[in-house]
């Protein structure tokens, strides 16, 4: 880690901090956690500083800032987990949390097992941010918001409203495990967003744009990512959608644009390949390792090592380094995403996917940056090949039912394809499909793989974590489009 932080942004538990936690103290806490007979324990310290800025009606309305500090103690006994947390680094509070979590093992436990000597695990560095945005002056961020607002308004006189926002955080974590692993990380995250509303003859439409990731202010250095580019893009979508017509209803060919379409992948297969569902046999991908679960064109990876990407992790929240994992190779299911518990169940090494929202929640298998790799088709040829269908360009989100594989995702900018050309823009519409069925129907893949600009947050069991997605242009032979024109 080469990120250097001013004192106010340093965790009090970090070495040299006001309440530094060292291996010796952690060992004592882990010993208490295991007193009742647990098999394994870990302690996760987290310090988070965040800030947000919004501009509305051409004025900076709100500035916000927040600080949270706490630690979570987890004890496992077989497949059972005890969890407790506290927001205080006072010894008796921490010891109480350790004891509470340890109660899971009461009755039927073995005599307390020892805690191994700590050694720092080596971790990579995928987001060394020389100057985190939190240390940059507030004025600089407000200048960006104003620039985006101005660019959106300048794009077209029909833009009547613009909102711009900047949110940022730095999270410092420190983890100790009873099997002797110690890991620490500093995780910066920022996101810039613009929303524009266009109005014409009483009709209104909105458009959004944005991006971010584990960057500092260097994020804005690239031309396509500067504040004015995001402002113009939000305005472009809002104006384009003014002419939107009712979307068709029923099964048809659909072409997904590159980048953000990865949301489909995230919902259609990603969640189903998180190994907790497969350990419990509750996923529709359970027991299918080695089988063809998608079109042979499809290779799907989850990669926590993509530099500065929103889903990148140097180390997961159980102390395993971020990894590049292949999930589906040429259509064949080759691996799941694991946390410690599921890896143990399958007799495998953890894959660096054990993540948690905060110290208040226990880790579980989660995606990082999930991608469908590029293929051989020219993206223009893919569109040209469709006689009548829908081209999906921007998305507002998705959801999946893990058990039966049904998923939906919502299009916020899409177009009708008629005789190989994009024609009318379509009103907001949902696509619905079944994950394995839709992946078998992928019949063309573009050469234009793209990683989405970082805006996505994934929710599972009430826990939110930042993720990213990527795809090339994709043609799906048939999927149900949920419009109103039957």
């Amino acid at each position, binding site marked *: 880690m080469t990120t250097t932080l001013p004192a106010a942004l340093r965790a009090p538990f970090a070495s040299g901090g006001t309440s530094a936690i060292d291996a010796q103290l952690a060992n004592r806490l882990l010993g208490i956690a295991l007193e009742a007979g647990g098999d394994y324990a870990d302690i996760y310290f987290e310090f988070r500083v965040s800030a947000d800025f919004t501009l509305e009606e051409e004025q900076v309305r709100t500035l916000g800032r927040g600080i949270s500090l706490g630690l979570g103690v987890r004890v496992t006994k077989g497949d059972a987990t005890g969890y*407790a947390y*506290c927001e205080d680094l006072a010894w008796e509070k921490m010891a109480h*949390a350790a004891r509470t979590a340890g109660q899971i093992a009461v009755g039927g436990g073995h005599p307390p097992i020892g805690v191994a000597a700590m050694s720092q695990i080596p971790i990579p560095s995928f987001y060394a941010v020389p100057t985190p945005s939190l240390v940059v002056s507030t004025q600089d961020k407000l200048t960006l918001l104003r620039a985006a607002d101005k660019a959106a308004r300048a794009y077209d006189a029909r833009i009547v409203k613009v909102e711009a926002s900047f949110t940022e955080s730095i999270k410092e974590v420190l983890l100790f495990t009873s099997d002797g692993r110690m890991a620490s990380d500093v995780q910066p995250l920022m996101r810039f967003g613009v929303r524009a509303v266009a109005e014409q003859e009483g009709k209104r439409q909105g458009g959004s744009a944005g991006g971010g990731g584990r960057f500092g202010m260097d994020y804005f250095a690239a031309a396509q990512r500067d504040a004015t580019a995001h402002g113009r893009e939000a305005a472009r979508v809002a104006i384009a959608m003014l002419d939107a017509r009712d979307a068709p209803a*029923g099964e048809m060919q659909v072409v997904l644009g590159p980048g953000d379409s990865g949301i489909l992948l995230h919902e259609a297969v990603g969640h189903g390949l998180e190994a907790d569902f497969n350990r419990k*046999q509750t996923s529709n991908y359970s027991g299918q390792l080695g089988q063809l679960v998608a079109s042979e064109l499809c290779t799907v990876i989850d990669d926590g090592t993509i530099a500065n990407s929103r889903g990148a992790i140097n180390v997961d929240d159980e102390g395993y380094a971020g990894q590049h994992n292949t999930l589906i190779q040429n259509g064949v299911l080759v691996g799941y995403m694991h946390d410690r518990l599921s890896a143990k169940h399958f007799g495998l090494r953890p894959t660096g996917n054990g993540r948690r929202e905060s110290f208040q929640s226990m880790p579980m298998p989660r995606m990082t940056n999930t991608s469908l790799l590029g293929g051989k088709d020219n993206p223009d040829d893919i569109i040209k090949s469709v006689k009548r269908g829908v081209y999906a360009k921007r998305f507002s989100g998705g959801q999946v039912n893990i058990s039966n594989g049904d998923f*939906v995702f919502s299009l916020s900018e899409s177009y009708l394809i008629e005789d190989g050309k994009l024609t009318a823009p379509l009103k907001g*519409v949902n696509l619905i*499909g079944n994950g394995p069925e839709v992946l078998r129907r992928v019949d063309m893949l573009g050469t234009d793989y793209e990683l989405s600009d970082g805006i996505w947050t994934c929710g599972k069991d009430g826990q939110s974590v930042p993720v990213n997605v990527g795809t090339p242009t994709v043609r799906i032979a048939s999927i149900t489009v*949920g419009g109103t024109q039957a």
Partner: protein
Amino acid sequence: MSTSDSAGKSASAPSAGMSERRVKEICDIAQLAVELAKKAGADHAEVVVRDGSDLTAKVRLGEPELVQEAGSTALGLRVVRGGRRAVTHTSDLRREALEALCAETVALAGFAEVDEFALPPDPSLLATSVAELDLYDPRVAEVDAAWALRQAIAAEAAARKHDARVTNSEGATWSRTLGASAFATSGGFVGGYRGSSASLVVEPLCDDATDPANPKKRNGFWWTASRFLSELEAAEAVGIEAARRTVATLGSRKVETQECAIVFDPEVARSIVGTIFSVANGSSFWRKSSYLVGREGELIASPLISIVDDPLRPRGPGSRPFDGDGLPTRVNQVVDRGVLCPVLCDVYSARKLGRQSNGASGRSVGGNPGPTASNLIMQAGTMSKQDLVRSTKKGLYVTQLMGFGFNAVTGDFSRGAQGFWIENGELTFPVSEVTIAANFDEILKRIDAVADDLVLRTAIAAPTFRVSHMTLAGTSRN
């Protein structure tokens, strides 16, 4: 601030719960923070303090899977100085930390632009007493992890025993939350209250080999929740209902794309009521981000529809004795026989719209106040649910909705749906993987039947109702 270390040991002393004394303590902290903010240079300061303590006990296939027990406290501060505002939050409530936070918040406000609407309400409007709404049950606090686990085990066992087609389980979870909330302002308001809630959810799983070429799993769930322990449904009954609902989805299939009637089960009807609130509140109105802007006093829904927001309902899951601006709460009509009433406002959105707040402000720890529904209730009709279904010739009875396909600005609505096909007034086979779509304005006006089966166990509640027709997208027509 964990209340107990008795997990797994039923012989230990009951936990302390959320005492009246604790409510007083966090009121004092809120008042202290208001004073410190004034000292740091704020013209006005508002402080919210929330204290919470949770217990979650989850079992799966008869074995404990998770016991989580912990508490947390957070403080949120909003200051106005020279008409400029900033909001901050922290989990560090030590005096020196609060002093630093206040100084930082006042400095941060200096970067904002002057917003004449952001001033706190006139002190004469603030609530002068805190109504007792019976929101806290000490018996919920007394539950220990062992008892919670036994409830979850009983519920899951009942589900698995009820029907042999229940072949697996995503588990059963018993959980409780004890909370206290305090609010203090430089205008002189200070108040606090406590609340409890307990719930049990059971999630059975079935293997569905109806289509041998494409075997699937089918999940379902049922739940009970209340602020009072004695009002929870029996664990076994919850498990049996969960099993019944899950088994009923075996053999789900798509139907052909068509226009047909859509009947919303109460479990999804309430999400439609939530969607109405998302476009009928002061914030969406002044932001012009709602298709309903400018339509107060007009017919925006079927005359069968009346919706009320009632924050004062004793034991109500969404009840609150004062609002997020410190104003007294009151019952507000939201839709009256299809006519849109004055929308729910907090002080800020009311000022933006040139009117008075109707006491419907909500405030999170880290955010600005905004209009928030309390107990938002769609009134029951007179027809039984059976008669409603019986009078439906052809349509979809929807039990689950998926996705986020709603555009508030235009009203375009398109969501994934699951449920049962209705043919000649009878529920026939289960349906999945279809979408239902129409413009929301039309959906509300096309409601042609409302049943009498309203149950008030959720903050947003609705009876079964029917929309005369929407577009259902499924398989291609041959």
